[in-house]
């Protein structure tokens, strides 16, 4: 979309009749929110509504057997992809300092301790893996999937990618996803500390009653 039209417009009076100083079109439906959306759930919109032409069909399996049952002639790929997804889960999956933090997000007995070079922490068990292009000679794509059994978690009964993207209800096994879903996720080994930003707000918010808003925009 041309960006410099406003300039042309202001200098070109002959086109004034049709020229407009405002955004020509806004996709109004895409601006509707309906219900208030939790930040996490935004991942759904981003993945399922963006770039419609760039999607592929993917399926989620809960085990290599589950995969083999659906694709009997690909048992070997099913097993290999599972192992690769497990390794990826360990690398990119959510990590917590304590078992309690992990279980409050994923449910009782849903977490295990992991030790590696960057320390020890707790991670949810991989609940399944997403596969696409299983039959393609160019090779398949895989991603580990998680889900939560905690009633306090927005992840409850959802398929969740390692980066927290919500792929929808966990009973759903087949979906169309953006190709980006299969890109490797950046690793953060371990978050050491939070809360290092935001202290000025707390300090200044405690001031006086006429500061009604907590916002820091101008």
């Amino acid at each position, binding site marked *: *979309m041309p*960006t410099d039209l*406003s300039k042309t417009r*202001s200098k070109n009076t002959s086109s*004034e009749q049709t020229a*407009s*100083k*405002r*955004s*020509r079109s*806004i*996709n*109004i439906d*895409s*601006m*509707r*929110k*309906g219900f*208030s*959306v939790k*930040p996490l759930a*935004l*991942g759904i*919109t*981003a993945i399922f*509504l*963006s*770039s419609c032409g760039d999607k592929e069909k993917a399926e989620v399996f809960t085990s290599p057997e589950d995969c083999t049952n659906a694709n009997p002639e690909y048992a070997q790929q099913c097993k290999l992809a599972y192992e690769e997804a497990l390794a990826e889960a360990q690398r990119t999956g*959510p*990590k917590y300092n304590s078992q309690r933090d992990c279980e409050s997000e994923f449910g009782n007995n849903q977490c295990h301790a992991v030790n590696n070079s*960057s*320390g020890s922490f707790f991670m949810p068990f991989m609940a399944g893996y997403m596969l696409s292009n299983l039959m393609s000679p160019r090779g398949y794509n895989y991603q580990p999937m998680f889900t939560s059994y905690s009633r306090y978690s927005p992840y409850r009964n959802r398929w969740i990618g390692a*980066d*927290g993207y919500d792929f929808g209800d966990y009973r759903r096994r087949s979906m169309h996803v953006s190709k980006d879903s299969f890109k490797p*996720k*950046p690793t*953060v*080994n*371990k*978050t*050491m*500390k*939070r809360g*290092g*930003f*935001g202290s*000025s*707000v707390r300090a*200044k918010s405690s*001031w*006086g009653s*006429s*500061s*009604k*808003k*907590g*916002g*820091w*925009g*101008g």
Partner: protein
Amino acid sequence: MLRINIKERENWQRKAADFGFKFHTMYGETYWDETAYYQFSLQQIEQDLEDPTVEIHQMCLEVVDKVVQSEQLLEKFQIPADFWQLIADSWKHKQPSLYSRLDFAYHGKGPAKLYENNADTPTSLYESGFWQWLWLEEQVNAAKLPKQSDQFNSLQEKLVHRLAAIAKHYGIEHMHFACCQDTEEDRGTVQYLQDCAKESGLLNDFVFIEDIGLSDCGSFSDLKDNRIETLFKLYPWEFMQREEFGQAIQDAGVNWIEPIWKSVLSNKALMPMLWKMFPNHPNLLAAYFEDELTKARETKLVKKPIFSREGANISIIEQGKTVVQGDGPYGEEGFIYQDFYPLPQFGNNHTLIGSWLVNDQAAGISMREDSSLITQDSSRFLPHICI
């Protein structure tokens, strides 16, 4: 420039709920006010607001170029020395900026006078870019406004375009967005930018400023321990630079939106600096640093903290005496003084014009009214049209 009463759209509150516009009424008081609108001529818009906005932005960039090269000036701007190099590098590498809002006092004729530049964390973006756009669309469709009514407002279109350009600049497909907890207005502003990012094909995630983590490898992380690679933060640089994680900024490798060189612009020291470099420019008000106040010939001055938000701590000084004293939590970094120039009055309303820039292009205006001469967080937002 006229203020004209108009009937409110029926059920607009329900529509606002539909679109997730939650802060149209805050603390029981009207914020979005569509009982009236402002009307401009095309000439007023283009000559008196659009062109000066673009020109002033270029002047501001000249200030940045000068300040980043001078330790003395960086000190005057109250920027912590630890960040001087980072700011200079960010400027040298032309790290892309997203948006700014210039605040003007404009009486419908004569030059609009610049009050300040909100270059780092401007808000009222959603109500400007989308909500007043929708208002015009619907009022025209309902034949409540003439068919040829237009609006100076290409914000959303330009934001979508600019976010895509920034993504291309950094070679990224994903952005994080952040603001502070417990503020519906800021969350709404950031959600709007997320919507624009989505529209430009970007994946996005949200994290509260207070929830940002620091990982063992020095990068910042969100609540899911994902690395923050690119971050739009609706949180002022001058706060971040003084907080605990400020020291980690250098090594965190984040693509910041706004980039850190904007610390120089979202700073009231900009005003005396502009006046020094472009004295007597028709869109500028005379402005002075505290230590050069003896040079001021004006009898009435406005005293503003170097860092402040929403009209806090602004005082009006006449013949050396404080006649209006605004309180607030700011001012420890010092003050600047600006020639007193009143806002135009429409009835009991004092009207301020916010003029938007997306990168270096003028992108529209927003109108705010306050019952006081100093526009505060209690002000109302009104739509406008141009004909």
